């Protein structure tokens, strides 16, 4: 069982009346890159903070990097790295000073981290800016510097909370290059991201909804598990189409993605019948085509499934 880098059982966190995490179970194997994905408010950040030992859960237990988070938070902290959602470096310190400060706080013996620093600066292309103040770096560079600081003490597990939000595409790519390389060095990565293309690169995805992990598997397995077919519908006005589709049987879910509606339909649904329904509702510029299931569709389907289950059980109680 020592091959688990993170093992959480029944984690629950309440903030007043709001339940942020509700009996969460999570297993992360050593050397994995696990993506925590889910809508805002699903409890991703709260879960990370519990696993990092800075938030005490109301219930449940967790073992991270071989130590109990509740009983030995200091041992856990020494073995992990955490990159919070908000940029968290000292703006007036230079790149080198920021790295040195973090190395010192982790009591990395002097002289042993400089090589690692140079290596990371090289990969991230930040070596040129080593003596520049953090505040003078671009957003993407700041985020890469934050990652270096998180990795400087060679943690066994790193937790990255939306590390690439607001980062330009090129920096995002650099960022993921570093992440891909980490498992090879025996580092386990737990990352949250709102970008599905990034999530698709994780070795495993844990989909969170309302404080629980609804499913965890490889991206391919998650996509394969979806039984519904996906229709992409373009038309105007979207709202009319959406209302009409919601009332129609064989339709499992409707989501708006920009100028398209993604409609999940059951296997026996008839696209021609759906076209007729929409034309009767009075939409214009109608275009319907079949599409392969994306990760988004998987999550929408999971979330919808969870919702109807809850509705059913609530109805059962009444």
């Amino acid at each position, binding site marked *: 069982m020592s091959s688990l880098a993170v093992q959480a059982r029944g984690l629950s966190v309440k903030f007043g009346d709001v339940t942020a995490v509700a009996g969460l179970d999570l297993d992360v194997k050593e050397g994995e890159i696990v993506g925590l994905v889910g809508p805002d408010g699903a409890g991703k950040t709260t879960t990370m903070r519990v696993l990092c030992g800075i938030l005490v859960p109301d219930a449940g237990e967790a073992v991270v990097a071989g130590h109990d988070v509740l009983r030995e938070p200091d041992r856990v902290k020494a073995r992990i790295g*955490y990159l919070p959602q908000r940029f968290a470096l*000292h703006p007036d*310190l230079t790149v080198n000073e920021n790295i040195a400060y973090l190395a010192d*706080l982790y009591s990395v013996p002097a002289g042993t981290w400089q090589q690692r620093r140079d290596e990371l600066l090289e990969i991230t292309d930040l070596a040129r800016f080593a003596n520049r103040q953090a505040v003078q770096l671009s957003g993407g560079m700041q985020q890469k510097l934050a990652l270096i600081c998180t990795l400087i003490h060679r943690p066994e597990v790193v937790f990255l909370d939306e590390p690439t939000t607001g980062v330009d595409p090129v920096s995002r790519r650099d960022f993921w290059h570093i992440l891909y390389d980490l498992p090879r060095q025996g580092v386990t990565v737990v990352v949250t991201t709102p970008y599905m293309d990034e999530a698709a690169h994780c070795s495993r995805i844990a989909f969170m909804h309302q404080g629980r992990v609804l499913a965890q598997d490889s991206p391919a397995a998650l996509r394969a598990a979806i039984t519904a077919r996906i229709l992409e519908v373009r038309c105007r006005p979207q709202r009319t189409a959406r209302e009409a589709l919601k009332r129609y049987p064989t339709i499992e879910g409707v989501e708006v993605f920009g100028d398209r509606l993604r409609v999940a339909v059951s296997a026996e649904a008839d696209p021609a019948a759906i076209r007729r329904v929409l034309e009767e509702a009075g939409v214009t510029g109608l275009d319907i085509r079949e599409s392969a299931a994306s990760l988004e569709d998987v999550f929408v389907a999971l979330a919808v499934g969870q919702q109807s289950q809850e509705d059913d059980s609530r109805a059962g109680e009444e």
Partner: protein
Amino acid sequence: MLRFIQVIKKEFIHLRRDPMALRLVIVAPIIQLIMFGYAATHDVRNVPVAVFDGDRSAESRQLIEEIEHSYYFHLIQTADDPRDIERRLQSGEAMIGVQIPRDFQRKIMRGTPAQIGLYVDGTDSNTSGVATAYMLGILRQGAASMQIRQARTEGRLRMAPPSVSVEPRVWYNIDLSSINFMVPGVFGLILLVLTVMLGGLSIVRERETGTLEQLLVTPLKIWELLLGKLVPFALVATLDASVIFLLALGWFHVVFRGSLTLLVAMALVFLVNNLGFGLLISTLSRTQQQAQLTAFLFIMPSVLLSGFFFPIANMPVPMQYVTYLIPLRYFLEIVRGIFLKGAGIGVLWPQMLALTAFAIAHFAAGIAAFRKRL
């Protein structure tokens, strides 16, 4: 190993890179010292006086001369018209107007009471009150000695008038100079402002930049963080206090009669009090701005009610009770006592006890709030 030293090192980098903090820490105390040392003086000196001489006699001229020669007054051009006095008081050219009536000489000669008009601009009640008392003294004594002399020459006065001779003897601040009073006060004031302000920023700045969250996931212990954040401010405040102390003695020639050890010890207690209070503010604030405003909100009444400007004994009685809640009050009494009176523990122990109690309470509250809000 000794992680809090790293935090201290980092705090000093912040201080070095932040021109605002540098100014607050080094320039502001010196400017304050000079400002309060020179400008905030209660001494009544060179008060402008306008005189209307309606008598133009030898006696009236002699009286005017006495005013002019006094150390406290400065005679601006004499008025030609009684209404001139009002105009000058209104414009602020004069603070005091003296009107000598036409029959002044005659009444002095006859030994009947002579009336002199005295007009005072009471806008600055403190100075005008003192100046009025001085002026009354000069006029009364001048007129009285003229009458006595006259009576003597006429033979009406056979023996000396009954008199009481009062010889004032001032202790502790022999020159009655307000610099001796103000500068030790500034010593306490600057320690207060600096440490509450800096302590107030300590934690909230890290919270605002998000680095506090980062610190919490490092193995850094709470006491290491606190020590690392507060020691730099304590060092800076100590440095400032030393500079002010040296300036007070070397530049302002303030007398220092007491024990330096005692002063340093009590300054450290005061420092702990202020840093604890600053920590409390910093922990409860969401933004640096909020912390600074809160600090200011407490510093203002502290200064006003501490006896820094106005003697506590002159305040309304309910207010006097409020001053017991202000640590600066005790520290000022201690500092002034040590500086000017050479007072020791034997006299100052109640203030020292109160200050120490406040320091312990504030520091404990600061730490408790800090632990709770993490």
